[in-house]
């Protein structure tokens, strides 16, 4: 089939909540919007399988001030109060506008429950809202690379339509990158397509990343299937002989390190007999997909012990991503905007995880801002959608040397083995990080030199390249921050150093670099 060629004012890449809100915001300004998703808008991405609870603070100055200062403190000096205020305010104003499309229900106190939304219904609502506003949605159209004008600004993107089996290219006045975070194929629920593609495409085009060292987050699930975590918060843990394990509760470093130590001794089992009693009857109605992995395995969730595992969340409930350069979430590349988990969430979460409320508020707000900003920029653009463009993609598309077989699965396995193992991630050390960097650089060099994909194979090949690239950035940034801060835990540098209270910027595809933002600003001022 011949290549699909389209034109738009705004092209949104991605199909989760950030992409949905970006498309809606852009279309509301009257812009012509195309949204290209790797999967299906409604089921793809981690929004669809989650049930994001949004950061939800009423417009009472005292309450907002308190919420902001609480989270500012727990961000270890890297968050931004003005951004926090905007995210809270935009979320509060915009989320209820979904009411015509989403069955908001009661809140148990006489009002409407807005802050928490169930994934499949949320994504279906965003899809219908966007469609009614005239957004053209292209499902199963993964983007592979950005198109650039000769001056380096963004001109669109190109990709592959995997059901129709043809290439596509879309010229646009501005592009919103909303491709989610990267979980390194850990098996985390909903994350298979979250492979860091957007970061790779953007960095190839010259964009910068920030906070990539804050990539250590895990979620507990039965060993055979990643689920959401509602039933497990009161779990007790046991070893294979039935001895209770001493695991401090919570979700932070102490809890994770406790579990990690337990896993060294063999399988760990959870016991949910202490779970709140109402869960036994209403779990299915709140989180319908959590029960089947148990029921179908013949495990009585609340009455029988079952083996558990920690599934890595990488930059999904970690915090790093594309660096934001202005109030509309434009990156340092003109015409390229970033939203949701593809972008850094340090502006509101600082050095910690934004999971649990902030990330979804960020995805909504950054999506909305990016969509509006992209539409405004496209409208001002006098260039039009013709003229020559450069294709910015390289690795796995245009090899540097002779093409030959490279095993994507093996490359992904190397990346995952550097980033996901608990002992490496929760006790980072210079020596192990350096050894990992060597391995990752080798795998990357092999992909750059030899991997060449055509047709459908391009999709998997670019996913492998993006996973390896993201692993390199995370590992490199972890080396460049010789202290512990938030979710970045260095066993060889356990203290938090006041002089490093600055965001760490990372960039480059082959030769990587990092720089503290404070130094960048000092350099610019000098």
């Amino acid at each position, binding site marked *: 089939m011949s290549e699909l060629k389209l034109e738009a004012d705004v092209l949104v890449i991605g199909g989760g909540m950030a992409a949905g809100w970006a498309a809606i915001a852009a279309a509301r300004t009257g812009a012509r919007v195309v949204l290209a998703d790797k999967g299906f808008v409604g089921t793809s991405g981690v929004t669809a399988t989650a049930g994001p609870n949004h950061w939800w603070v009423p417009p009472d100055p005292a309450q907002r001030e308190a919420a902001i200062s609480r989270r500012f403190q*727990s961000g270890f000096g890297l968050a931004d109060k003005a951004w926090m205020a905007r995210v809270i305010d935009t979320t509060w104003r915009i989320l209820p506008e979904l009411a015509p499309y989403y069955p908001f229900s009661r809140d*148990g106190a006489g009002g409407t429950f807005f802050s928490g939304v169930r994934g499949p219904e949320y994504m279906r609502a965003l899809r219908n809202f966007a469609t009614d506003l005239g957004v053209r949605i292209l499902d*199963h159209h993964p983007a592979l690379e950005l198109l650039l004008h000769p001056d380096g600004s963004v001109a669109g993107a190109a990709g592959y339509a995997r059901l129709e089996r043809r290439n596509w290219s879309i010229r646009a006045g501005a592009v919103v990158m909303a491709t989610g975070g990267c979980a390194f194929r850990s098996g985390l629920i909903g994350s*298979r397509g979250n492979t860091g593609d957007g970061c790779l495409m953007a960095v190839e085009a010259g964009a910068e990343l920030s906070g990539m060292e804050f990539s250590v987050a895990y979620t507990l699930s039965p060993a*055979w299937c990643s689920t959401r975590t509602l039933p497990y918060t009161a779990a007790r843990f046991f070893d294979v002989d039935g001895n209770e394990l001493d695991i401090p509760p*919570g979700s*932070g470093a102490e809890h994770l390190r406790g579990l990690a130590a337990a896993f060294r001794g063999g399988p760990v089992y959870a016991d949910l007999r202490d779970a709140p009693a109402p869960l036994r009857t*209403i779990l299915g109605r*709140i989180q*319908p997909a959590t029960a089947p992995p148990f029921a179908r395995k013949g495990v009585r969730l609340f009455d029988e012990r079952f083996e558990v595992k920690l599934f890595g969340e990488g930059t999904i409930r970690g915090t790093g991503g594309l660096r934001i350069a202005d109030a509309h979430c434009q990156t340092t590349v003109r015409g390229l905007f970033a939203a949701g988990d593809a972008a850094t969430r340090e502006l509101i979460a600082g050095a910690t995880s934004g999971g649990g409320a902030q990330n979804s508020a960020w995805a909504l707000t950054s999506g909305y801002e990016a969509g509006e900003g992209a539409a405004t920029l496209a409208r001002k653009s006098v260039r039009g959608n013709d003229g020559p463009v450069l294709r910015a993609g390289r690795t796995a598309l245009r090899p540097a040397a002779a093409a030959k077989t490279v095993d994507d699965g093996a490359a992904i396995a190397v990346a995952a083995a550097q980033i996901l193992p608990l002992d490496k991630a929760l006790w980072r050390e210079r020596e192990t990080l350096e050894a990992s960097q060597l391995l990752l650089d080798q795998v990357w060099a092999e992909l750059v030199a030899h991997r060449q994909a055509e047709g459908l194979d391009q999709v998997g090949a670019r996913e492998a390249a993006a996973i390896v690239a993201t692993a390199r950035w995370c590992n490199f940034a972890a080396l460049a921050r010789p202290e512990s801060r938030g979710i970045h835990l260095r066993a060889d540098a356990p203290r938090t150093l006041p002089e490093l209270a600055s965001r760490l910027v990372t960039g480059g595809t082959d030769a990587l670099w990092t720089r503290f933002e404070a130094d960048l600003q000092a350099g610019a001022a000098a």
Partner: protein
Amino acid sequence: MIAHIFEDLCTGCNACVAACPDHVLDLGPATVPVIARLDQCQTCFMCELYCPADAIFVAPDQRAPEHVDPAAILASGQLGQMRRDQGWGTGDADPLREYWRLGPLLMEGAQRAVDRYKQSHPEWSPPER
């Protein structure tokens, strides 16, 4: 991983082929979709949710394909259970009426774990968040 499509229930609507976020399914030569790339299945149950005929069964283990017995699945009552729980296709006008309880139940569980741990470790206090 997706384990079985009941041919006699499937209407060939192809909703699942479109809805699977991981491109596991292809249009079939006849009408029933083909599980073409099982290695890409993430056990997300979304194909079940989007199948209006309750013709799909996803097996619980995401680590490896499982052999299933179609007759046993039919007898188990599991077919379509997730979709019914979700309230899709049931005509339920208010499927999310219990959803607000998610947060309080999460917190209640977490608080219980903290109280229990404090009993055995009186000197311990939960980390600030």
